[in-house]
C-alpha cells in the first residue's frame, strides 16, 4: 500500500494522476509542542490487516423483468434494499416506482452486503433485454475476490505521556487501502477511525493524518465495526505503550486517562460529541468479574513455571446508530409503519433489513408489551420494497437505536388513537383513559375496560368513532435521530502461548458491554458472542494475502482462517446500562461492539505474554509464525 503512493508506481486510475484518493489532516491543540516537552514518547507501527467478511451465504441476485406492467423485480441478498432500488432505477434507467427489490432471509451481511454491486444492475439489464428471469449465485472464491473486504490500514502511531502515565498527545498517520475503486461507504470507513482515535480518554493534543490509497486489490468497505476496530486497536495500543513507558499496570493507566462519568455529553478534542458513558464503571466491573488481581498472581506463577500467560485489556467506545441525515449522503432516518387489523392483530413494517440480528423478535416484543397483545399476534415485515415502501436499512448498529425509535413513535401514535376511541366509547375524557395490559379503562374503573381488540374492531367498523377521527388504526413514522450513539465497554482476554510453536490459545474472554437500554438480553448477548469471535479472528487467525502480481492467494475457506468452534472458549459476559439521551428508547446499538472490543484485548494479551519481547511493526493476525519469530529475538 505504501508502494502505491510512490512516484514511480503505476497508476490505478491514470486520469487522477495519483494513487492517493484523499488526504485529510485533523489537528487539535498543539501536538508539536506537547511531543517536544513530554517526558515519555513512544512509537509503534500497527497493521490492521485486510479481512474478508465471509457471510456464510454468498451473494445471490435474481432479476425478473415483466414487460406487461413494465416492472423490474430484483431479489438480492442485501442489507439495503431501498438504496438498491434507487440505484437500480438510475443505472438501468427504469422509473423507481416500477422497481421492486426483495431481500429475503439473508445469510449474514457484516457490512459487505451494504453495497451496490455490479451484478445487481447487470442482471437487471440482461433480464430486461432478454425478457428472461436471470439468476446468479456467487461461488465462495468469487466472494473472496469480488465482495468487498474490510480493514487494511497501516498506522504510524506516536504517543506522549507525562511521567505519571497521563496521555498528553497522540499523533497518527494512517494509510487506508481502498482497493481499486470507491464503494458505497469507503471514504467514511477510515473516517470512523479518525473520529474515534482518542477512544475513552481525555486528551487535548491530537494530530491525525489519513490517506486513502488506491491499489490493484479488491475494494475495501464496511466490515463489522468499519473503522472503529482500527481506531480502538490504535488507542488501546497507545495505553499499553504508556503503561510500558511509565512502568504502571495497564488498568491503572486507563483509569488515569478516562473521560470521567460526570463529563457527558463530552466533546472530544477533534470535535466528536459522545452522548453518555461510564468507562471507569465498565472497567471496574470487568476487573471484578475476571478477578484481575488473582489473574495477575496466576500469571506470576505461570512465569515462574516457564509458561507464557498473558492478560490483555481493552476499553472501547464506538460510534453508531447512524444518521442523523446531515452526516449521511442519502438519509439517516428510518421508517416504521404499524397496521392494526380489525381483529386486533398487528403488522409491523420496518425499513430496516435484518440479516440475523433478530429485530423481528425484539420489535415484536416491544409491540406486544406496549399494546398488550400476544407475541403470536405480531408480524414484522421487512426486506421487500413493495411491502415496505421506504427505508434505509441495517448497518452501523443502527437497528434498535434508529429503527426501534421509529417503531416507538408508531406505538405511541397507536396508543394515543386507541385511547381517544376508548374515551369516546366510555364517555370520558381521553386524559382519563388508562391503557395497560391490553385493556383501556377510565382511571379507577377497570371493571368497564375495553380490550385493545375491541378498540381495533371499533376503528375498522367505524360506526361509533369520534366525529373528527379517521377510521383505521395505523401509524407511519420516519424517525430522524438527533445524534450518534456511543456504546462502550471493557474486554479482558487471557491467553497462553506455546513456546515451541508460537500457538496462541485463548483461555478466557471476559466482557462488560454497555449498549444503553436493552430490549432482549438474549439477542444482545448473541450479538456480542458473534462479534467477539470475529474480533478474535482478526487478532489471531484471519488474513488476506495477495502475491506481488496482485493474485489473491487466500481465495477459499481452505486458505482463509475463519475461527472454528474448537479455537474459541465460551465467553463470559456482563453489562452495565447507561442509556442514551439521543433517542426515545435509550438504546445505543450492539451489532459491532463485540468485534471492536475483542481484537485489542486479545492482541494486548499476546503481547503481555511475550514480554519482554516486543513486536514492531505489530502486524495482525498474531499467527504462530509471527509469535514464534518474536520469541526468537534476542531479549531486549
Amino acid at each position: 500500500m505504501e508502494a502505491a503512493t510512490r512516484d514511480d508506481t503505476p497508476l490505478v486510475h491514470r486520469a487522477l494522476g495519483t494513487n492517493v484518493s484523499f488526504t485529510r489532516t485533523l489537528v487539535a491543540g498543539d501536538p508539536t509542542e506537547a511531543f517536544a516537552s513530554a517526558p515519555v514518547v513512544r512509537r509503534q507501527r500497527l497493521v490492521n490487516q485486510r479481512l474478508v467478511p465471509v457471510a456464510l451465504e454468498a451473494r445471490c441476485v435474481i432479476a425478473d423483468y415483466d414487460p406487461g406492467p413494465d416492472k423490474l423485480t430484483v431479489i438480492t441478498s442485501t442489507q439495503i434494499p431501498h438504496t438498491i432500488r434507487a440505484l437500480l432505477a438510475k443505472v438501468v434507467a427504469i422509473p423507481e416506482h416500477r422497481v421492486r427489490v426483495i431481500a429475503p432471509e439473508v445469510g449474514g451481511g457484516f457490512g459487505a452486503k451494504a453495497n451496490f454491486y455490479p451484478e445487481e444492475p447487470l442482471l437487471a439489464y440482461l433480464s430486461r433485454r432478454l425478457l428472461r428471469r436471470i439468476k446468479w449465485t456467487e461461488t465462495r472464491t468469487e466472494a473472496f475476490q469480488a465482495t468487498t473486504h474490510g480493514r487494511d490500514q497501516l498506522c504510524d502511531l506516536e504517543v506522549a505521556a507525562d511521567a505519571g502515565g497521563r496521555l498528553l498527545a497522540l499523533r497518527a498517520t494512517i494509510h487506508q487501502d481502498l482497493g481499486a475503486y470507491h464503494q458505497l461507504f469507503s471514504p467514511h470507513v477510515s473516517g470512523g477511525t479518525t473520529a474515534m482515535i482518542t477512544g475513552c480518554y481525555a486528551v487535548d493534543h491530537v494530530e491525525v493524518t489519513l490517506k486513502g490509497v488506491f491499489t490493484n486489490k479488491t475494494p475495501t468497505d464496511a466490515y463489522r465495526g468499519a473503522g472503529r476496530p482500527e481506531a480502538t486497536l490504535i488507542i488501546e495500543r497507545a495505553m499499553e505503550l504508556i503503561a510500558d513507558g511509565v512502568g504502571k499496570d495497564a488498568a491503572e493507566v486507563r483509569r488515569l486517562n478516562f473521560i470521567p462519568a460526570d463529563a457527558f455529553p463530552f466533546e472530544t478534542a477533534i470535535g466528536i460529541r459522545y452522548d453518555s458513558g461510564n468507562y471507569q464503571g465498565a472497567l471496574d466491573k470487568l476487573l471484578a468479574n475476571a478477578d484481575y488481581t488473582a489473574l495477575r498472581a496466576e500469571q506470576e506463577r505461570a512465569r515462574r513455571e516457564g509458561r507464557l500467560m498473558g492478560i490483555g485489556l481493552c476499553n472501547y467506545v464506538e460510534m453508531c446508530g447512524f444518521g442523523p441525515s446531515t452526516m449521511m449522503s442519502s438519509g439517516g432516518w428510518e421508517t416504521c409503519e404499524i397496521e392494526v387489523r380489525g381483529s386486533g392483530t398487528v403488522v409491523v413494517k420496518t425499513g430496516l433489513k435484518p440479516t440475523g440480528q433478530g429485530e423481528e423478535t425484539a420489535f415484536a416484543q416491544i409491540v406486544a408489551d406496549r399494546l398488550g397483545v400476544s407475541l403470536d399476534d405480531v408480524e414484522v415485515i421487512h426486506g421487500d420494497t413493495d411491502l415496505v415502501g421506504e427505508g434505509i436499512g441495517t448497518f452501523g448498529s443502527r437497528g434498535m437505536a434508529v429503527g426501534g425509535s421509529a417503531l416507538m413513535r408508531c406505538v405511541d401514535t397507536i396508543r394515543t388513537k386507541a385511547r381517544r376511541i376508548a374515551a369516546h366509547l366510555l364517555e370520558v375524557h381521553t386524559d382519563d383513559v388508562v391503557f395497560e395490559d391490553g385493556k383501556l379503562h377510565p382511571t379507577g374503573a377497570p371493571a368497564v375496560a375495553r380490550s385493545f381488540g375491541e378498540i381495533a374492531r371499533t376503528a375498522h367498523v367505524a360506526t361509533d368513532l369520534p366525529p373528527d377521527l379517521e377510521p383505521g388504526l395505523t401509524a407511519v413514522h420516519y424517525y430522524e435521530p438527533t445524534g450518534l450513539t456511543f456504546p462502550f465497554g471493557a474486554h479482558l482476554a487471557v491467553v497462553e502461548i506455546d513456546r515451541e510453536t508460537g500457538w496462541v490459545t485463548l483461555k478466557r474472554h471476559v466482557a462488560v458491554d454497555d449498549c444503553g437500554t436493552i430490549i432482549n438480553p438474549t439477542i444482545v448477548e448473541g450479538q456480542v458472542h458473534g462479534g467477539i469471535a470475529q474480533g478474535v479472528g482478526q487478532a489471531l487467525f484471519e488474513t488476506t494475502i495477495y502475491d506481488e502480481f496482485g493474485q489473491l492467494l487466500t481465495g477459499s475457506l481452505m486458505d482463509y482462517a475463519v475461527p472454528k468452534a474448537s479455537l474459541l472458549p465460551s465467553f463470559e459476559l456482563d453489562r452495565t446500562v447507561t442509556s442514551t439521551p439521543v433517542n426515545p428508547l435509550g438504546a445505543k446499538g450492539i451489532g459491532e461492539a463485540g468485534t471492536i472490543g475483542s481484537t485489542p484485548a486479545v492482541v494486548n494479551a499476546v503481547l503481555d505474554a511475550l514480554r519482554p519481547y516486543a513486536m514492531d511493526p505489530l502486524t495482525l493476525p498474531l499467527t504462530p509464525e509471527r509469535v514464534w519469530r518474536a520469541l526468537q529475538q534476542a531479549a531486549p
Partner: protein
Amino acid sequence: MTKVTLTLNGVERSDDIEPRLLLVQYVREVAGLTGTHIGCETSICGACTVLVDRRAVKSCTQFAVQAEGKAVTTIEGLGTDGQLHPLQEAFWSEHALQCGFCTPGMILTAHQLLGASNMPDEGEIRHALEGNLCRCTGYHNIVRAIQAAARPN
C-alpha cells in the same frame, strides 16, 4: 444419465441423474429440498451437511450416485409430524442461530455427535463442530443448545 435409488427423509425415490451430480445438487435441485445450503466448494464450511445412513457427510463432496441404496436425511426430515426434533427445539430455545445459514448443517453434525455420545462435554462438542463454520454466533449458544439437547429430560 444414471438411475439412483435411495431413501430421502424416509421416502424411497428413483431419479435419472448425471453421474457427476453432487449429492447437494441432487438434494436441492432434483428433490427441491433447499434447507441444505452451499457455503463453499471446498468441504470446509459444513453448511451442506446431511446424514447418510445416520453419518454426517458434506454433501458438496459426495456424488449423488454414492448414496445409492442408502438413507439420506436432510434438515427437512428431522422433525416428525410437525414437531421439531429436540435439537431443533434446543437451537431455537438457546438462540443458537442468527442468520440461520449454517444451522441445518450444525444440527445434523450435532445429531451424529449425540448418536455417538449421550453427554459430550464442551470440548467434545467444540471438536465435533470443527467442520462446521458459523460466522454469527461465535458458537457459544450452539454449544449450549447441543448440551441442552443432550440433557436427559
